């Protein structure tokens, strides 16, 4: 009996180093994420991934967004402190800063050897290539901005849904009336997407001299005069943010506004078939529809890059990517997932995919974050209120980007 006990103990002791080695092999990775709806929780995705990869534990950390500044600054601070997550959700506008900090791990070799690569359209890979030629971002979600239209009001007024700026202006004016406005402008933070569609798509260009050319100044003057002269935006437009523009549309105060498929289910619930979406108008510069990107990156500080890549590539693969986008309210980047996409009504997905051909992003330079967060809202609001001229507004933007 005693000998048997000794043998058992010896066997246990002999096995201990093996068990220890096994335990040490388990890798924990930290992943930072943000969803518009804070109630969305990726726990089920994490559980599925960990089941398939028992040697990896994913610690998903929800980081407050705060208009982008909160998330970005926390990420920069974590990188400087040497405590960066292994992987994080990222956007194009912070890529130049992250590259400057040498904070991103190049993903070229991972992507080239990845079986899921072919399931993501070439357009995404084109947009996700950094200025230095490397690929640091793996697309996980996307939206393209489109134009919401109250199709019942258009039909009643005998108007066709706008495809160009002449139709857009005529409709905005015709549909403006008592307590109702033709277009709901987002003049507060985040409204640069509206301006880009209406000005960069109609004569202005984001290249040296392209913001102060005669065509650019004319396009911007027209844009500002939609508020100051034609009065087709609500008087609250200079300070309206996302919530106000969406609520104005849902409560029947505005006939058109610009947003993306992320708000489609809300719009459908509020207005039913009265609302539809079409690509933003196309002007002399071929139209501009802001590409709302969402990617994952592996941080250069990570000591578990392979495990971090496994996790982010899982999130961009087929069914997992569909599940991820059900949480984020955006659109799958996979071709296979898009085939049976039924998260939002089909007409909104159709407007999204039709807008892809004119999808654009702001320049991948350090100035873009300043432009979107402070320079655009402050300068545009001043122009809308008549404190500066529309031309001075464009000169401010030209100076910021091109000196």
């Amino acid at each position, binding site marked *: 009996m005693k000998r048997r006990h000794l043998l058992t103990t010896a066997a246990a002791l002999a096995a201990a180093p093996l068990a220890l080695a096994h335990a040490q092999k388990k890798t924990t990775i930290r992943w930072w994420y943000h969803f518009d709806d804070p109630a969305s929780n990726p726990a089920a995705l994490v559980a599925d991934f960990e089941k398939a990869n028992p040697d990896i534990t994913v610690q998903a950390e929800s980081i407050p967004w705060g208009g982008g500044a909160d998330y*970005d600054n926390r990420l920069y601070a974590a990188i400087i402190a040497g405590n960066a997550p292994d992987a994080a959700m990222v956007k194009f506008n912070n890529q130049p800063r992250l590259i400057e900090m040498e904070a991103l791990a190049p993903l070229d070799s991972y992507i080239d050897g990845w079986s899921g690569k072919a399931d993501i359209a070439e357009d995404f890979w084109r947009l996700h290539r950094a200025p230095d030629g490397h690929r640091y971002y793996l697309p996980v979600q996307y939206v393209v901005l489109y134009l919401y239209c109250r199709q019942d009001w258009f039909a009643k007024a005998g108007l066709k849904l706008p495809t160009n700026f002449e139709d857009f202006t005529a409709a905005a004016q015709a549909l403006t009336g008592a307590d109702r406005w033709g277009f709901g402008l987002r003049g*507060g933070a985040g409204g640069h997407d509206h301006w880009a569609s209406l000005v960069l798509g109609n004569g202005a260009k984001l290249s040296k001299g392209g913001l102060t050319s005669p065509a650019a100044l004319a396009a911007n003057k027209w844009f500002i005069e939609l508020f100051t002269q034609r009065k087709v935006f609500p008087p*609250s437009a200079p*300070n309206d943010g996302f919530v*106000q523009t969406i609520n104005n549309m849902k*409560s029947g105060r505005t006939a058109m506004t610009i947003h993306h498929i992320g708000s489609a289910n809300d719009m459908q619930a509020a207005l039913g078939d009265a609302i539809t979406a079409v690509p933003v108008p196309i002007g002399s510069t071929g139209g501009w529809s802001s590409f709302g990107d969402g990617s994952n990156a592996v941080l250069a500080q990570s000591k578990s890059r392979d495990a971090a890549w496994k996790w982010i590539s899982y999130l961009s693969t087929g069914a997992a990517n569909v599940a991820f986008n059900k949480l984020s309210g955006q659109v799958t980047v996979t071709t296979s997932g898009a085939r049976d996409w039924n998260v939002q009504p089909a007409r909104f997905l159709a407007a999204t995919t039709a807008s892809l051909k004119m999808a654009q992003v702001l320049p991948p330079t350090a100035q873009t974050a*300043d432009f979107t967060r402070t320079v655009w809202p402050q*300068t545009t609001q001043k122009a809308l209120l008549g404190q500066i001229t529309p031309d001075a507004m464009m000169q401010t933007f030209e100076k910021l980007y091109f000196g």
Partner: protein
Amino acid sequence: MHARSLPWLLLAPALLATGFLVLLPVADTLWLSLHDVILYRPRSQPFVGLGNYIALLDDADFWESLGHSLVWVVVAVGLQFSLGFTAALLLNRAFPWRGLARALVIVPWALPSVIIGLVWTWMLDFNLGLINTLGLRWGLLDAPVAWLAQPGTAMLAVILAVVWQGFPFFAITLLAGLQGIPKELYEAAEIDGASTFNSFRNVTLPSLAPVIATALLLRMIWVANSLDLILVMTGGGPGTATQTLPLYAFLKAWSGADYGHGSALAVVLAILLLGVVSTYAARANR
């Protein structure tokens, strides 16, 4: 030796906490303000001396924010004091349900600033706000007003919100002061034939003067430093119409990631407030 070191030993925890939590951040802010510190360029933080401060002299936004701060502090604290003093005088009188009224008056002071900002943003909303709805219904307005989207009304709106938040501080503080005035002083004034106004002028005001001065100084410091209400309600807009100095410093440092410039703004604000703080400290030490 032991008797001399004992006080320092007893003070050590408080001194250590103050050193780490106050003096160290202040020293760090001063260091940042003398360097070109961009958060996403951690390897390049060159010493620029007073460069960040000199740049402020040519910064139109700085001067505009300074002007807005002056309006913000003087008007907001002035209105808070007037409203709070009136409320204190009313609450000092006997009337039914006075206990309940005294409890309710503290509610705005007890609410977090962010909640107050959101509540007032919705009340002032152009389309769905209570202020426009009631104004139109009662015939006070011809058309809805975009309160937060016009430079003149936006500043008024944020001041209105901070007045609502801050007047209970004056009401409660001055009420405590009023209750501490001996009744005999009023009786003597009445025997001397003083009218109600004369009693107020010659008894109430002189007796309350120390409390009023301390409350005003404290509130001026708090209001001058506060940016949360403005950040929530207007973000400093429209344009820069409601951008005060602390908000400008915050936006420079946090949104713009320019900690050198932002720290210089914070130091300037601190120096400006130092006058008020030293007056308060001198009073407190009397």
